[in-house]
């Protein structure tokens, strides 16, 4: 399996490092040509406005949407969650609009309110997951076929819908492989 990691900006190397530990091959994706042959895509944490400008500037938006519509699984963290959402509160920011989630950006506050905490993510097992939230968004509303995988202080912070998986926190900033394994085994491998 070859997993593309969108490398326009943000923590793409950290995702590659964890995916590598999970035993899958990765490729940095900055241009349309680099999407060729990719089985699944990871959209890392970073600045979502920056990513959205660069996606548009290099005409990457449509090819990714087309591949996703043909069945390509995508895992988005933080900015990646925002990029997958169909609706962003108080924002006209362009996204890939692939998941039926309604998202608020910087919803937990500015950097001084960024935090880490132990989360219950039942699909990853009983052991709590150390989640790092950096100026993080959360999901306000989901449609019926979205699975809520975790909440933090009642807010939805992890969810999946068919071949898409999103987290408001940063698995790439930890050494815990469970989130990436879950994406590879339970989502990507089921869909490709």
């Amino acid at each position, binding site marked *: 399996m070859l997993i593309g990691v969108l490398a326009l900006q943000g923590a793409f190397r950290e995702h590659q490092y964890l995916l590598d530990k999970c035993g899958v091959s990765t490729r940095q994706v*900055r241009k349309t040509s680099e999407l060729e042959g990719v089985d699944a895509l990871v959209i890392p944490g*970073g600045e979502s406005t920056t990513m959205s400008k*660069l996606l548009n500037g290099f005409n990457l938006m449509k090819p990714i949407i087309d591949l996703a519509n043909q069945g390509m699984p995508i895992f988005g963290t933080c900015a990646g969650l925002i990029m997958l959402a169909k609706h962003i509160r108080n924002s006209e920011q362009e996204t890939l609009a692939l998941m039926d989630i309604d998202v608020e950006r910087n919803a937990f506050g*500015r*950097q*001084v309110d960024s935090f880490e905490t132990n989360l219950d993510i039942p699909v990853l097992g009983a052991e709590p997951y150390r989640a790092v939230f950096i*100026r993080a968004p959360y999901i306000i509303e989901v449609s019926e076929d979205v699975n809520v995988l975790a909440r933090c202080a009642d807010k939805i912070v992890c969810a999946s819908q068919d071949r898409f998986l999103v987290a408001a926190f940063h698995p790439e*900033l930890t050494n815990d492989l469970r989130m990436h394994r879950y994406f590879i085994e339970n989502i990507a491998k089921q869909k490709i």
Partner: protein
Amino acid sequence: MAETVAEKGTWTVKKGLAEMLKGGVIMDVTTPEQAKIAEDAGACAVMALERVPADIRAAGGVARMADPTIIMRIMDAVTIPVMAKARIGHFVEAQILESLGVDYIDESEVLTPADDQYHIDKHSFKVPFVCGARNLGEALRRIAEGAAMIRTKGEPGTGNVVEAVRHMRMVMGEIRRVQNLPKEEMMSAAKNIGAPYELLLEIASNGKLPVVNFAAGGIATPADAALMMQLGCDGIFVGSGIFKSKDPRSRAKAIVVATTHFNDPKILAEISRDLGEAMPGIEIATIVPEQRMQDRGW
């Protein structure tokens, strides 16, 4: 049930924001309008200032933290992170900036130092700090004091990239050297460069700084940004280079693209076209020693 205590201001969280800025461009802005231009161009953060370094250099006198009104208006104007500068050692300016809710504080040599011996104890703050460094010893001293992000000092406000290049090569070269030292030589090496011993051991085994390292000080063109990225930095600060140029909007966009596609000369050629005049530059040798900003800090 997992414990739901939210721990704020931890080292992971402080370092984490810098990780998210990687591969991006942080732009100096002095007004909400400039901040919008930066955000629209794809900046991953802005630095809110009263004056850009080139103007600070021209004005002379004592340069201090910006008026909180300027910083707050910029924070209101954009959704990307907002950084602000405090003087070296001026922990009260830092306290004020933290209370405003800025996302990062730059303890910066661009402003006039408030303490000629000591830097701020950055561990005692919840807000993360970025500090400038010319070499590995300086970088590790700042990290030991709590800096969660490092940048080259370069020579701010000059539009001349040579000093940033020198500082980046210096840090990278020293890291490579440390990796080849036998254990018994490490203590003397730490002493010689004024670096904390434990951090130096960490460098020797990991081969990189424990925090994100950006380039700053003199970057004026997309090619400058790509050069610094190819030399191994994690992202770019552009101070005067954008809003002192003829066409800030196009230049800002081009520098953002250059930082992402730093390894692709075809794209770099394309985006470097028709940008209008860059900021006027200053030859470093013409700056009298007292006016060299990079020599501030200890």
